[in-house]
């Protein structure tokens, strides 16, 4: 948490084009952005600071999104961190799995424009 009420979002996304776009948009919306290209990097970042929200992709190289979730939920510090899943697809199975790890919401990338998506995600951040 930052001093000046600026919220921090950790974006875990392996596609560089996408993460750049997300970074830009979140920044211009007034959020501080931490980028991680894979789950391992994200865990490294989390050991140093706890963000207000984690923007999580599922399909990551190496450890996938669900494995990452499982890991951080076991950690006291990140047990209650808000997580939003942004992935290319969804299914009942994935939803079930996600709910087990207590996520705030699940969005499918191709359903939204970037503006809309960022709006929804920041809505989650600002929820109590």
């Amino acid at each position, binding site marked *: 948490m930052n001093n000046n009420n600026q919220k921090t979002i950790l974006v875990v996304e392996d*596609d*560089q*084009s*996408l993460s*750049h*776009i997300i970074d*830009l*948009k979140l920044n*211009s919306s007034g959020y501080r952005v931490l980028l991680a290209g894979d789950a391992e990097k994200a865990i490294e970042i989390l050991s140093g600071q706890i963000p207000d929200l984690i923007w999580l992709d599922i*399909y990551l190289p190496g450890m996938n999104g669900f494995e990452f979730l499982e890991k951080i939920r076991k950690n006291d510090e990140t047990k209650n961190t808000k997580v939003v899943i942004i992935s*290319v*697809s969804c299914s009942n199975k994935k939803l079930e799995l996600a709910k087990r790890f207590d996520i705030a919401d699940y969005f499918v*990338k*191709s359903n939204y*424009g*970037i*503006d809309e998506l960022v709006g929804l995600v920041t809505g989650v951040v600002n929820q109590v």
Partner: protein
Amino acid sequence: MTIIITLVDLFISLFVLVLSLFVLYEDPGKKVNRIFGITIFFFASWIVCSSLSDITGFWGSEFWALWFARASVIGPFIFCPLFVYFTYYFPREESNLSTGKIIGLFLPSLAGIAFFATDYNVASITLESWGTGFEPGLLYVWLLICLLSYFGYGFYRLIRNYRTVKIYHEKAQIFYVSIGAALFVLLGILANIVLPLYGISQYSVFAPAVAVLIFSSLTAYAIVAHHMMDIWLVMRMGTIFSLVFAIISFIYIGIMTLLTQYSGLSYVYSLILVSLIVTLTFEPLKKFIEKKSDRIFFHKHYNFDEVIEELTSAIHGISLDLNKILTVSNEIVRRNFKVRQATIAVLTPKDAFLLSAAGSAGEAIELPPDNPLVAFLNENRDFIVNREDILHGLDRGEIRMEVDRIDLVPRAYEEMVKLDFTLAIPISSGDKLIAIYFIGEKLSKDFFTYQDLRLLSHLTGEVGVMINNARLYEDLKKLDEAKSNFISVVSHQLRTPLSAIRWSTELLLDGSVDKDSEQEFLRDNYKNSLFIIYQLDDMLTALDLEDRRIDIKSEKCSLRPLIEEIAKENEVIIRAKKMEIIYSFPPKAESIFCDCKKIRKVIEILMRNAIRYTPDSGGRAEIVMREKIQGDEKLLEISVADNGIGISPKEEGYIFEKFFRGEEAKKISPNGFGLGLFIVRAFARAHGGEAHFESAGRNKGSRFYLTVRLNEAEAARIK
């Protein structure tokens, strides 16, 4: 009392005749069967003549009694040399006897027969209450000498064969025949020559007839067991036929007598009535006797139809599950045939036969296509290999084998011994061998009978069809799975770059992007568009390969710079992974004629795989180009080796298939299409070449080969 004995004698001779007919019918082509048939005929004729002598004597006809008594000596004179002749064909045919030798063999007997009509034979007979008595003349001395010499020589030959024969059941056969013959000779001499000298000729026919019965049965069993037929089957046939015949005759005679004697009916009407009765009762009577004798002879055997029924209904519910089919049919075979083990070896994608863990070994064994047994079965797909018998198959002309491959037969035999199975039954689909049913020995150590083999043949045929169906189903399922996987993978893969293009364009249209980011977005959009285009190109190439012939545009192609170019394109990632790449080119190789773009694609894919599927540090790849001579062809071989994830034996057969991704490969690169190697092989083959690989196993690296032909014209260009 004596009439009963005589009738029993006649019954025995009838039974024995039926036996001989049966043995003859079993294989009329075999010389040993024919000789046996004829020998038995003369045995029977001897018993019949003697019995008729008794009967006609009983009816008071001295003339016929005498002549039948005399005629009865012909049989023994002929079956003595026949016995010797028989030993030349039993248990296996030896070199043919020349006609001269055969004549020489029969000469002493023929000399004896010449005197049959004289007083040296039976000089006179006496009609006793028990039958016809006779005094043996000098001819009987000659007969005794012949009997002893011929049978002595025959025994000598049998014993010699016994010593030299190597196969267990042949030894047994010789033993049976010897015992039977010895018994016969002893009883024959006793009852027909010794006792009559003391004036006791009642047993002249009875005792030896019993011996004939024993001898014939044992010999029939011995001959026929050579063809693996069950003695009980033989006995059953003989009994049924004789019994039916005897009972019918009895009924006929009995009813005729009753009718003509006690009713008023005339002879003709009685005849008609009895004929009607016989016709109507024949079939049910035969069936009744068959059932009863089945109960006696076959109570511990299976019922043919029931077993087939059992198999089909057991398989019915699980007909598409290969493993279940194998387990169930093995269990049924084991139980019904009472064998130690039964197991099926199924064809793997590599054309080897996988013998699943069963029986003694406990470990799965793979039989490669060059295994002698497999090679043998591939050439003789309707031949049931019986370890006891395979070496005879050649003699009997049942095995088709080229002269220079004859050694396959004993090697196949040794393989059966090594695997410890008795039967190997080939199962084919169309003209391809798809499975081998291995069956161990019977718990009772009996031979496998014709009945057994016929049933097994049917059973394995059914199982073969089921295996085929299950396989096809499995293949279809895999293909379907792969296609579904492909579709979902393609969707995922394309969604990411498309989202990137969509969102960046959205921001660009918004005008909310700074100059630097604007450039970056435009560059990324360009890259992503290209990526989508290339992936779809791969996909379409692969789809095309299915339907159309591939066009090869041949041109001069410098491979070395091509490879270096590809390496340069992958420079960044090679450096990032700290990979070591070694190149090995022949000193003089310049260029070849081929479709440059396609060959480039192939090398690109192979190198891309080598880079992708090696560890993140310590990865090594080696690219070797060299000339190979195969027969009278010059080939160019390009190989790409790595020390990466390798290929497991289970995956080996599928590697080049469309959509196939190995498990480890999926972990490393989840978005691959599984089309790369498919394209590689298709392009290689379009050039008249081939793609193949070697891998020591999971995580033990792999080496992929591309081999293309260089004909003379091309070879000349390689300086």
